[in-house]
């Protein structure tokens, strides 16, 4: 957009001001102070964007007449337009836009031409005076700032500065050099605390070595003490030994003198020559040499020390006593023999008498072979019984037969009373015969008797039959019955008789078998047996007595033989047994008793000897037992020079010394135990390993923290580098242009204008050294140059992006030094030459001269003096 002409109808001091044929490049408008430059600039703003509201000093109501307002003719986008602004009662006034034909155009055409540039932007960037130039905020309005600061940021961008701050905060939370509260510092503290625990444990090997050394040293000391202890103990043992041995020693001495008294040499009593020697001479040599083998006093018999006769007695003491014990028996035997012989004679006489009584045919032999035992007797009694039974039966039958006969007779008697007597007679006869045959008649006659009885029976039967026949008439039936009965009975009677006969036969046969006379009845047989038995008894007695005498004689002979054998073994005279045993008994026994007396004497002697020898042996054994390794001889020798009091003192002294040594040893052992326990503890102590592991874990924690810290640090470094790249390479075009302009204006003193990343402020960078500073650090002139450069740049960019707008600058060089003023003027000339119309107002003619001198094509316009 180029302003071709500006016409003011009435605006402030201006009335009918007409600036024609403005140059499309640089126009320098010169006017004195109060010459209306600012009013003119305000007029241009007002035409384009409306009058300021009433009361605003910028409103510039006409002071010298004319209608408030005017118009600007401008060229844009190939067309020519007139913009007319005039007061119409509204605050901002009315605006008309028309083309070069004069045709009115819609009001919004102006906005189109301005590309909707706001009044604010125009005032900030394109139409400014010193006041605006020096104000930073005019560049920080969003619309402007967007061009300056946000270009090149991430798309939509978050908060890069926040990120940087966060990184720093997080990093510093972890670690700061010499910091104490940060996580790393805390972890370091934990590690150093652990290390304090570890350090002493790592000295353990030294302690261990030292303990080993101590152990060895203690061991050596202990060995020394042990040696001393052993010596003291052996002294104590010796003293105690002497004490214990004292009584045995005394016993030994007593036994030795007893032996002497008994005339037994010590050597024979189980002692040895060395013993004897020490007793007598106390030979030192003897003590040293080992004792010769000695008889075993435990098993040898002290009786060996008695005279041979006594020894023989003692040897035979058992036999002697046995035989003496048998003495009453010997006497008994002697008496028994006499009695037995007498008994035998008596029995013999009695036997002879019995044999005579028994008569011929009986001798000792027959007596001996005849059996007279119970069996035989019983047999006889059986025969007697059998006979009696049969006889009794016969009698019974006879009675009943008689009764039957009587009955018959009664029947008969009624006719023949006599017959009663006949019956009676018959019965009596029968009885008499039976009695005779059974009892009175000797067995030899028995057979005859039986016949007689049979005859009697037959007679009787005839009588009966006769009687029966007599009664038949009266009581025929009765008589017949009675007769029958009687007949039957008599038949029975006959059978019985027959049985009796058989028994008799058997009896005879038995007697024969027994070698007895067949004529004997049972009673006689029994009597005979009794007598034989008597004889047998005598015969037996004789035999027994003879045997007793014989047996006792034998025993006596043996016993006497034994006694003699004993005498023989004792080499004593034997008693002749030929003279008669019985006579020899008493002398034998007498000798035996004498032997017993001798034996007892020998035993007494042996006993005494045994006691002394035992005492001697016991004393020696006790002494030997007590002496232990010292040996009995040495002990004895020692004892010879001591007495119990001395020994007691020795014991007490030694005990004290042993106790002292023991206490030292216990102390050392305790120390050694402590050392060993500590050493074992150290060797198994896992605490160091645990702590090392714990430290390692802390280190891992620390490494984690360090790595985290490093992550933040790396991110920070990368961010700073990226920011640097950004600030160098991705500054908005505005800043790039501004840098160029500013460099030109400052003759190369400053190389760059930049907006630090994420900040809405500017910095300049000195070309030399790259030092950066903010505008506040610049001088007034330099800061004005910076802002001018920024505005030029913005205008240039705006021209490119939106629309080129004329730049109206009101006396902006006043604070510039000459050089910068020249440079700036030159720059503005170049800027204008690039198609940016510039209206530079000044009240200084020298500045106008600068412009015209530096910019050959510049149009100088001397503003007229206001009317």
């Amino acid at each position, binding site marked *: 957009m180029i302003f071709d002409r500006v016409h003011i109808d009435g605006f402030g001091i201006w009335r009918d001001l007409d600036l024609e044929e403005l140059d499309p490049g640089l126009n320098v408008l010169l006017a004195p102070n109060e010459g209306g430059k600012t009013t003119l600039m305000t007029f241009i703003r007002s035409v384009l964007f409306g009058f300021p509201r009433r009361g605003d000093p910028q409103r510039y109501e006409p002071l010298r007449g004319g209608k408030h307002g005017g118009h600007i003719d401008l060229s844009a986008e190939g067309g020519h337009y007139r913009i007319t602004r005039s007061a119409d009662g509204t605050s901002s006034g009315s605006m008309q836009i028309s083309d070069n034909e004069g045709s009115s155009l819609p009001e919004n055409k102006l906005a189109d031409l301005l590309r909707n540039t706001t009044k604010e932007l125009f005032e900030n960037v394109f139409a400014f005076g010193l006041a605006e130039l020096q104000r930073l905020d005019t560049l920080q309005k969003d619309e402007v700032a967007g061009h300056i600061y946000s270009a090149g940021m991430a*798309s939509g*961008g978050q908060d890069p500065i926040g*990120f940087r701050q966060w990184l720093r905060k997080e990093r510093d939370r972890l670690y700061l050099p010499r910091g104490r509260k940060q996580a790393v510092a805390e972890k370091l503290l934990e590690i150093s605390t652990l290390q304090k625990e570890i350090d002493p444990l790592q000295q353990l*090997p030294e302690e261990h070595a030292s303990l080993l050394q101590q152990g060895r040293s203690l061991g050596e000391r202990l060995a020394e003490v042990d040696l001393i202890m052993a010596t003291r103990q052996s002294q104590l043992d010796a003293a105690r030994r002497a004490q214990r041995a004292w009584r045995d020693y005394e016993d030994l001495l007593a036994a030795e003198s007893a032996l002497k008294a008994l005339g037994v040499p010590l050597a024979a009593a189980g002692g040895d020559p060395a013993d004897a020697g020490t007793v007598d001479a106390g030979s030192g040599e003897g003590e040293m040499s080992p004792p010769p083998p000695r008889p075993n006093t435990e098993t040898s018999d002290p009786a060996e020390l008695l005279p041979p006769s006594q020894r023989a007695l003692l040897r035979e003491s058992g036999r002697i006593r046995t035989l003496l014990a048998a003495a009453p028996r010997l006497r008994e035997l002697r008496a028994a023999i006499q009695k037995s012989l007498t008994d035998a004679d008596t029995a013999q006489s009695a036997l002879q008498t019995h044999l005579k009584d028994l008569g011929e045919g009986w001798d000792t032999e027959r007596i001996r072979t005849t059996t007279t035992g119970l069996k035989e007797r019983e047999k006889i009694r059986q025969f007697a019984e059998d006979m009696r039974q049969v006889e009794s039966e016969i009698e019974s039958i006879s009675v009943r037969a008689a009764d039957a006969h009587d009955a018959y007779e009664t029947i008969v008697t009624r006719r023949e009373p006599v017959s009663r007597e006949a019956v009676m007679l018959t019965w009596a006869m029968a009885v008499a015969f039976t009695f005779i045959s059974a009892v009175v008649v000797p067995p030899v006659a028995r057979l005859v008797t039986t016949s007689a009885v049979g005859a009697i029976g037959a007679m009787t039967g005839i009588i009966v039959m006769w009687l029966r026949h007599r009664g038949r008439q009266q009581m025929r039936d009765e008589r017949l019955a009675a007769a029958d009965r009687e007949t039957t009975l008599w038949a029975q009677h006959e059978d019985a008789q027959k049985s009796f006969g058989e028994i008799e036969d058997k009896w005879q046969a038995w007697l024969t078998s027994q070698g007895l006379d067949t004529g004997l009845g049972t009673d006689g047989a029994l009597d005979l047996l009794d007598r034989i038995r008597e004889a047998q008894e005598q015969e037996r007695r004789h035999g027994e007595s003879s045997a007793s005498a014989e047996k006792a004689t034998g025993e006596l002979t043996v016993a006497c033989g034994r006694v003699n054998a004993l005498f023989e073994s004792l080499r004593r005279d034997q008693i002749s047994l030929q003279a008669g045993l019985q006579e020899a008994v008493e002398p034998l026994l007498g000798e035996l008793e004498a032997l017993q007396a001798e034996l007892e004497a020998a035993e007494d002697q042996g006993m005494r000897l045994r006691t002394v020898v035992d005492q001697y042996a016991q004393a020696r054994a006790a002494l030997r037992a007590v002496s232990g390794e010292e040996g009995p001889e040495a002990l004895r020798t020692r004892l010879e020079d001591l007495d119990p009091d001395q020994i007691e003192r020795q014991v007490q002294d030694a005990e004290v010394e042993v106790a002292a040594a023991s206490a030292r040893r216990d102390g050392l052992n305790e120390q050694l135990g402590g050392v060993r326990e500590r050493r074992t503890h150290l060797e*198994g102590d896992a605490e160091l390993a645990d702590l090392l592991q714990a430290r390692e874990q802390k*280190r891992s924690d*620390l*490494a984690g923290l360090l790595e985290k810290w490093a992550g933040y640090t790396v991110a920070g*470094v990368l*961010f700073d580098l990226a920011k640097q790249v950004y600030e160098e390479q991705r500054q908005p075009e505005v800043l790039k242009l501004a840098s160029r302009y500013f460099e030109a204006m400052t003759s190369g003193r400053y190389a760059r204008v930049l907006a630090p990343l994420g900040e809405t402020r500017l910095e300049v960078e000195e070309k030399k050294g790259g030092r950066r500073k903010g505008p506040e650090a610049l001088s007034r002139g330099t800061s004005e140059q910076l802002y001018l450069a920024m505005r030029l740049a913005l205008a240039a960019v705006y021209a490119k992006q939106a629309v080129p707008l004329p730049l109206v600058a009101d006396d902006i060089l006043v604070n510039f030094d000459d050089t910068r003023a020249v440079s700036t003027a030159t720059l503005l000339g170049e800027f204008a030459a690039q198609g940016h119309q510039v209206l530079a107002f000044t009240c200084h003619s020298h500045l106008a001269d600068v412009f015209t001198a530096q910019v050959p094509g510049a149009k100088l316009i001397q503003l007229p003096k206001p009317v």
Partner: protein
Amino acid sequence: MQPFSFLHCADVHLGAPFRGLTSVSPELGAHLRDAPAAAFTRLVTAAVEHQVAGFIIAGDLFDAADRNLRAQIKLRDQLVRLHEAGISTFVTAGNHDPMGGWLSSIRYPDSVHFFGPEVTALPLQRDGETLANVYGVSFNRPEVKDNLAVEFPVEPEGPFSIGVLHASVGDRSEHAPYAPCSLQDLQSRRFDYWALGHVHKRETLHGERPIIHYPGNPQGLHINETGPRGGTLVEVASTGTISLTPIWSDVVRWHRLRTSIDGMESVDDLLGVFNQTTSAIVGEASECLHILRWTLTGGGPLHAELRRPDTGRDLTETLRAEYASPAEPGTVWLERLDLATRAARNMRALREQQDLLGDFLRLAEELRSSPPAPPDHEIGTGKLFGPEPESSTAVREAVAMLLEDRRVRAAMGDDPWTIADWPRLVAAAESLAIKWLSSGEE
């Protein structure tokens, strides 16, 4: 020749603590504490079971700096076991257990042979017959920078010769270059077997005679020592054939797992992967306690869930409680959960943006590809660094105050802190920048 065998191990680091763990339960702590000793015990047991003739320890048996008495007592106990089994032990001292670091107060069995600072040969015998000559040399100070390999004879004697050396062979920038030597130095010496120590990773540098072998360490001690660890059973046949068999001894095994969340919809999907992985890990060595570092990468729907402030911690606690309680063999302890996921955004596009974030990301990329040179230049192997980008310099200067902080250095002990993992640091920085500077939603 007589067939025989020996066990070769190194870098046992008895009593050394585990590194890099932040929080562990007391049970797990006790288990870890005893792990190097337990691993060594396993090797000793294996040696006894295989009736080896010799037991060779190529340095760094323990960390002398720890001055851990218990560790050395436990070591002594194990050496006594070998002695009682009739096995001779040959020990060289390394940089962690130089000769002065051995406690003189502890007595070792007669069958334990320690090499001195000069190369010496000791016979390995069985029943009075010499099976091999064992040559070895010890570090007499922690930092031996001399080439010790060249001290060994070129023509060793004996029916079989073993060289025992704690050394950094070849170019190994990741290991302190102690007793540095070249492979050629070792190959040119007519040894049958070089028993090396110092490098913790199992590696056979030369498979033909002379066999040159690092058995690795018997127990991994930190996350960079993953996988099975142990010693090597070396069997020499009557024909002279040498065969190597690993004897795994680790009781705690380290693992790294990376899982991409691409396409995952829920935390359950993630737990499924974890479950599957841990099952596989445990199945591989059920007698070990497993320590796992799990890094989640990729992007997708789960990312937003994982980005929530407590998600990582909650997930870690859940997995620990579920898989590693109580701490015992056959369980898995989640050591750390690294969340390296990102929204499904196009990093390249962001990086090409012509704005502050684009500048940031481009600078980050530049830093990633040329990290700052290590502050201690002399440890480098003489490589010339090219002109350093401004970002690297700036970062190095920025972290220097911490790296050089005396308190920090003292606290980190033998293991001075270095920025170990540049890509992770840079990624963290990128992530922060994207969060703060990008306009897009995450």
